[in-house]
């Protein structure tokens, strides 16, 4: 079916002309001609020139311990009787493709692509008293500490709102791997997985299961292409012949038709195949496939190749699972290494091979780090949440970092105009491993990401007559050192 048929056939000519006029020539050209849609911000500060067109956030949900991944400290092997205060890293450091950067054993593939990376070791988070994953994730994803008096948008929604989609069919903001129903704290997760005050137009398309992603853009279960086309044809016919067609130029109704048409176009587009992992070569799929997260990385690559603006892939937050190690930290981190190492490295190489890495910013981040002894930061009143409390190691479940540490964590950035093989900031080598050198707050990190995407950190919108900024109070400062 001709994707433009809706507007060419369905609407009475007079109505159609009326609403094209109402929309203004630019917009009309956009949806008739298929040019990329771009939503201008309400009010813009001077935007920096973008060094990236797309952004992939690889979210290590649940608190990825920096000393167990990208910031190895003195290695202490497992030995019954070891006093726990001696334990910072439970993995030895390995060399990477960059001389002065070492990361933890288990991340050999990522070590091989560190020469394409900027590693920030001095990220830190605000201590919110009670360390709750969903609150810190809210803070990290929106730049604002919950609760807020208005619904704060996710950074992906900011990109969707300010930059729009990269083409006319692909939803700009896609969220992969996080179930929002039937898991603990799901309401809290939904609270930041949102377009917020921008409205649901800018909210995320959620694909909790990468392997089932194609269903999200397929005609409903069991519907053949013929039937799908016929159904739409019926709708078009009813619209065209409605005795109420004179009301269709009402802007609400008109925008509804546009949305239906966008949806229909996506569901019938070639970009739809990007959602279908079964279209990938088996050996490629197998290399990515370390589980849901690995599949998500592959899906993210396919979506960005086909015009997605912002894609988040998460290891998935489920209380006490994955990176949320309240006991058995070492064993779990070992398992998580296996999940993330191969697909992340392959993603970077794939993007590079396709010539896309320079314009795609890939970020590995987490809501906070972990420590063996400290909950929050030294002196925090936060409740100790370790489930493996002990003074000396007695069994394997004691071995690892079981407390939430907000004083220093690692962020890795690839591509999108960032430096290659660059190390920024550091944490203390001895406990407490606080960010000591060039600390980077969430606001500053967001400012850096927004800057790469060509969005001023001071971008503001009037919400309930108050200014609301892309970074808190417009004060986030981009870490300019990380850009090439």
């Amino acid at each position, binding site marked *: 079916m001709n994707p433009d048929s809706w507007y060419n056939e369905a609407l009475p000519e007079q109505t159609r002309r009326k609403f094209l006029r109402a929309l203004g020539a630019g917009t009309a050209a956009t949806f008739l001609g298929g040019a990329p849609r771009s939503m201008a911000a309400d009010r813009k500060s001077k935007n920096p020139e973008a060094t990236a067109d797309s952004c992939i956030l690889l979210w290590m949900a649940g608190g990825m311990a920096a000393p167990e991944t990208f910031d190895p400290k003195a290695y202490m092997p497992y030995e019954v009787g070891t006093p726990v205060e001696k334990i910072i890293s439970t993995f030895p450091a390995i060399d990477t493709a960059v001389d002065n950067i070492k990361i933890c054993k288990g991340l050999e593939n990522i070590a091989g692509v560190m020469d394409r990376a900027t590693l920030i070791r001095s990220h830190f988070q605000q201590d919110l008293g009670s360390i709750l994953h969903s609150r810190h994730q809210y803070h990290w994803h929106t730049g604002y500490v919950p609760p807020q008096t208005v619904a704060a948008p996710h950074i992906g929604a900011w990109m969707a709102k300010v930059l729009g989609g990269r083409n006319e069919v692909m939803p700009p903001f896609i969220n992969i791997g996080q179930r929002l129903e039937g898991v603990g704290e799901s309401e809290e997760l939904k609270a930041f997985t949102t377009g917020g005050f921008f409205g649901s137009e800018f909210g995320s398309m959620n694909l909790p299961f990468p392997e089932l992603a194609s269903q999200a853009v397929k005609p409903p279960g069991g519907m053949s292409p013929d039937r799908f086309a016929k159904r739409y044809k019926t709708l078009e016919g009813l619209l065209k012949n409605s005795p109420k067609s004179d009301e*269709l130029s009402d802007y609400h109704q008109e925008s*509804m038709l546009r949305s239906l048409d966008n949806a229909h176009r996506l569901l019938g587009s070639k970009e739809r195949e990007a959602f279908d992992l079964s279209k990938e070569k088996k050996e490629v799929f197998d290399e990515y496939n370390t589980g849901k997260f690995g599949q998500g990385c592959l899906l993210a690559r396919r979506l960005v190749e086909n015009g997605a603006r912002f894609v988040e892939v998460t290891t998935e937050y489920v209380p006490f699972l994955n990176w949320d190690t309240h006991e058995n930290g070492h064993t779990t981190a070992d398992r998580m290494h296996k999940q993330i190492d191969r697909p992340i490295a392959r993603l970077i190489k794939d993007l590079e091979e396709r010539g896309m890495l320079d314009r795609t910013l890939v970020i590995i981040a987490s809501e906070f780090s972990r420590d063996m002894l400290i909950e929050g930061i030294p002196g925090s009143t936060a409740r100790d949440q370790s489930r493996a409390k002990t003074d000396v190691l007695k069994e394997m479940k004691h071995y690892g970092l079981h407390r939430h540490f907000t004083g220093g964590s690692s962020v890795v950035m690839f591509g999108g105009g960032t430096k290659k093989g660059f190390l920024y900031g550091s944490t203390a080598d001895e406990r407490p491993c606080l960010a000591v050198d060039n600390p980077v707050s969430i606001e500053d990190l967001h400012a850096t990401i927004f800057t790469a995407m060509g969005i001023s950190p001071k971008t503001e919108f009037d919400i309930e007559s108050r200014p609301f900024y892309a970074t808190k109070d417009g004060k986030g400062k981009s870490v300019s050192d990380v850009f090439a």
Partner: protein
Amino acid sequence: MPLGAAVDFAHEVVPILKKHCVECHGGEKSKGGFSMNTRALVLEADVLEPGHPDVSLLIEQLTAEDPDERMPPPGKKKAPLNTAEIDVLKRWIAADVPWEEGFTFAKDRYEPPLKPRKVKLPAGPAGANPIDLIVAEHFKGEKLDFPVPADDSTFLRRATIDLTGLPPSPGFAAKISQGKPLNRDKAVDRLLADKQGYAEHWMTFWNDLLRNDYGGTGFITGGRKQVTSWLYPALLNNKPFDEFVRELVAPTKESRGFIDGITWRGEVNASQTTQIQFSQNVSQVFLGINMKCASCHDSFIDRWTLREAYGLAAIYSETPLELERCDKPTGEMAKASWLFPELGQIDASKPRDERLKQLADLMTHPENGRMQRTIVNRLWAQMMGRGIVRPVDAMNTEPWSEDLLDLLANHLVSSGYDLKAVLRLIATSRIYQSRADVREDESEAYVFRGPVRKRMTAEQFLDTIRAVTGVWPKADGDAFKEKGASGGQLNKVMKAHDLKKWDDRPIRTAFGKRDSLQAALGRPNRDQVVTSRPDSVTTLEAINLANGPELAGMIRAGAEKLGNAVDPKNLVQSVFRASLSREPATEEMEISLSLLSAKPSTEDIEDFLWSVFMLPEFHYIN
């Protein structure tokens, strides 16, 4: 001039600030969160240190070498301040920032009257609805014609969905199509007499306003109490609104969830404590006052101050409350007080329950026109698609007709605070019963021309689909339990109706869990007070509507049920009647029949239903 020389604020400083600064940092603007409206705001912003011009960020920014760092910013195309001007500002700072008492850069704003006001009605035919007299006068002034009446079927669908959240029964549509004119006044009375339909529908509106039926943060730790057991009977029995407000402000055990707000886990900023939530929510919901600004610092956008926000909070607080400005303690203690002392004041020395009772009395004081106007404006917006004052939460905004607003407010009071009486007055007016205004552009300056189309809420939309197909959901597992996501809502309904067990009455969407389809259609999670729902259908929703499993499941169940009954022609006719309250036009019948063969399969019927449900005419209350 030497730094120590005197400075004349009004004649030297103000012109400079006006020329260079307040366009962005004064009036209603506060770029970068910085407003120069008052001395307090300037000092609070930490841009200067009184007495020390040499260490003032303000001067530093005004004199920066790099044009990107300098104020005014390059984009403003304003020249940098000259040396003489800088000199004045330096002297001003050196002299401890003198300011003229009461001076502000804030603009003169509309200040709404507080007390009720008598309305002198324009002349008109005897027996006319007073709303129409005022509206006709408005049209005369705007040189507009009174809009033509909506036809009976449009009117009936509109009124039925507006008042009960369900479409009219197909039988009514059939009668109308047979040419039997509808007695509209009677129809409105009949709808308002449907106590259950009314209560079930208005639960959605009040749940949003009161943050009831909330399953998010704080809920699992008991930080949130539902008020359903109080709210549902209150709506069912049309509790007079003054009592309604009193019982929410000075609550019983069952209604206290509203003022108790949400106890968030972990530390929250000062503007989200339960006391401040009380201040914000009570003023927003009942008075249309946005206290969110003032609960952090003196508001830039209206007249409310930090002290007033905390005064209200202190009524609720059981412990002494220190004012925090932008999350920093000020050392000043809040004194329980309320916003309109001209009506009376709170006695701060009394215990909390007494204070709350005093507040409830002040809130429902017969002279508190603000409370009356706020609720009637909300009802008007629900019925007419747009408030007389807009936004509905900013009652300090000038209404397009003060007379109309006051007429409705006075009607509320004279009817004994009967919300249904106000709805009746609106629904029986000629203007409510007129054809909806076709607006081609949202941004055109608003002049009232008649009713505005409303998008159905998630609850109205899904209930309407269920009414059409006759397939209602089964109660979910939590519905009859006291806890869980939809925790015990139906128990409260049963109790209100004196039912021993659930009979076969439909379970309305409002009583079910908010699933992903409902979330997509705009049912909020109620972290914040919500007073209006999204009015446009987005692309992601459209994808969900086109292929989401929830809707597809509902449609399939409907198709299976409808499939055994009738021949295709009857099917098309009854679906049009039930969905759109009208007969299908000849072409519509033909198109539908070409999809539905003589013996339609379930799939064909599904596709037909989907096509009807996707019509804007279905989604919108026209």
